[in-house]
């Protein structure tokens, strides 16, 4: 028998009985971060491959949403802070050991970059558009001339953004469920997949939807592979990791994860996209919508499950 009790009482709000440091704000931000990374990545990639006119939604239109999405995500992050007026302290230091620090700096660069990248497409999307002040028009021309540089920076930064949303969590060895290097690539691939899904929802061009759908098929395949690997890794590891995996293999997250993330968010859209590829008529909105919901639910579950997995005081759950 082993019985542990905290006899003095310990009920620190947000910590006991189960850690609840991060609520809805963090998973919403992680989802938006991945989605924006995906949209910007494909936009820059297809631009560099010279497919701007072939796939106009991917390259020109979808990025217009990214500054708005990022603003919502950043606002969610701001809401999560408990010492809000000091947020600027993020930008008085660079701490390479802290993923949150370099995430904050990446956001500081990628946010204006997403605004500039979208702005350079404005005149092509809305032919009547005119930036009222002449210096803005000159600036637009200048940035348009440097689109290639912008695109390469976006590819680089969007991969960091997508990856960091996972590494942010995997760096915490105090929370066994997060403490796996699979989380970085998993969130990156999931982010690219939600980006592709968002483009599929927006595009009216059949060829464009088909290429995004094909890309999405391979991304979902990689995601399923990574999820299986994640659990294999946990089950082959130390006790706390085995217990973390058991949260999803019979534990409280089993039903919600395997139903909403694995089946409805990955397997069903994968089959739908494969069938569409083979010529069956399936509205593209169905798999795209499922992928987006699955990506959001994945982040909610991962953020929540990580906080319930711990080394000490398991009796308090």
């Amino acid at each position: 028998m082993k019985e542990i009790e905290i006899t003095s009482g310990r009920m620190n709000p947000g910590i006991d009985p189960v850690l609840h440091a991060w609520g809805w704000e963090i998973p919403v931000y992680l989802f938006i971060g991945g989605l924006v990374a995906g949209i910007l990545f494909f936009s820059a990639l297809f631009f560099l491959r010279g497919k701007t006119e072939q796939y106009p939604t991917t390259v020109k239109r979808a990025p217009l949403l990214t500054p708005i999405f990022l603003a919502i995500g950043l606002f969610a992050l701001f809401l999560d802070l408990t010492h809000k007026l000091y947020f600027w302290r993020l930008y008085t230091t660079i701490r390479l050991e802290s993923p949150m620090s370099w995430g904050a700096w990446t956001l500081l660069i990628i946010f204006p970059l997403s605004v500039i990248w979208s702005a350079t497409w404005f005149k092509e999307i809305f032919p009547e558009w005119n930036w009222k002040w002449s210096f803005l028009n000159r600036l637009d021309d200048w940035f348009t001339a440097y689109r290639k540089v912008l695109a390469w920076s976006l590819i680089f930064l969007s991969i960091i953004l997508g990856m960091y949303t996972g590494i942010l969590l995997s760096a915490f060895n105090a929370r066994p469920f997060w403490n796996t290097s699979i989380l970085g690539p998993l969130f990156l691939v999931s982010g690219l997949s939600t980006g592709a899904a968002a483009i599929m929802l927006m595009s009216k061009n059949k060829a464009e939807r088909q290429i995004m759908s094909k890309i999405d098929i391979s991304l979902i395949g990689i995601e399923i592979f990574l999820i299986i690997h994640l659990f294999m890794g946990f089950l082959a590891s130390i006790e706390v990791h085995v217990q973390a995996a058991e949260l999803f293999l019979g534990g409280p997250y089993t039903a919600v994860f395997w139903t909403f993330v694995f089946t409805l968010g990955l397997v069903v859209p994968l089959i739908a996209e494969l069938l569409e590829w083979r010529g069956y008529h399936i509205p593209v909105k169905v798999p795209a919508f499922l992928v987006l919901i699955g990506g959001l639910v994945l982040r909610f579950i991962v953020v929540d499950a990580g906080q319930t997995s711990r080394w000490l005081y398991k009796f308090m759950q």
Partner: protein
Amino acid sequence: MARYAMAIDTKRCVGCTDCVVACQTENNVPVGYCRDWIVEETTGTYPELHMEIRSERCNHCEDAPCVRSCPTSASHYADGGIVLVDHDECIGCKACITSCPYDARFVHPEGYVDKCTFCIHRVKEGKDPACVSVCPTHAMIFGDLEDENSEISEALKTRKHKTLIPEAGTVPHVYYLL
């Protein structure tokens, strides 16, 4: 350079919670919160039972994950390896809270993150931390590990001891004498 640490004698501790109350009083810890707490662990099968009572708190780790994960350097190592939070640099992102395997930190109602400071304000005056100073059974020892003749160094040399979850890799500096 000093290396401050604490040793708690589990053979002497009776779990009276005096240390908890002393800390709350000394440090003005808001009602409903605590920086230290008492754990009773019972192992074995009746009648062969073994009970261990521990006063637990921040372990002032040598490789502190809270310091590593802090994006603003608010969490830092102060003199003697004491891990502190600078209130004016803390943004309340809670990365340190999730990074602590001991769950020793919490968000103070004023917004910044708070935890045990080893009563650094008292230590600077040459006094023991509040919890140590009130312990009625003298179960707690505070001191400098760099000083070979300090009471804590002597205790760790002569007594069997352990730390909590050393496998988490943080090199904790609160020792439990067995």
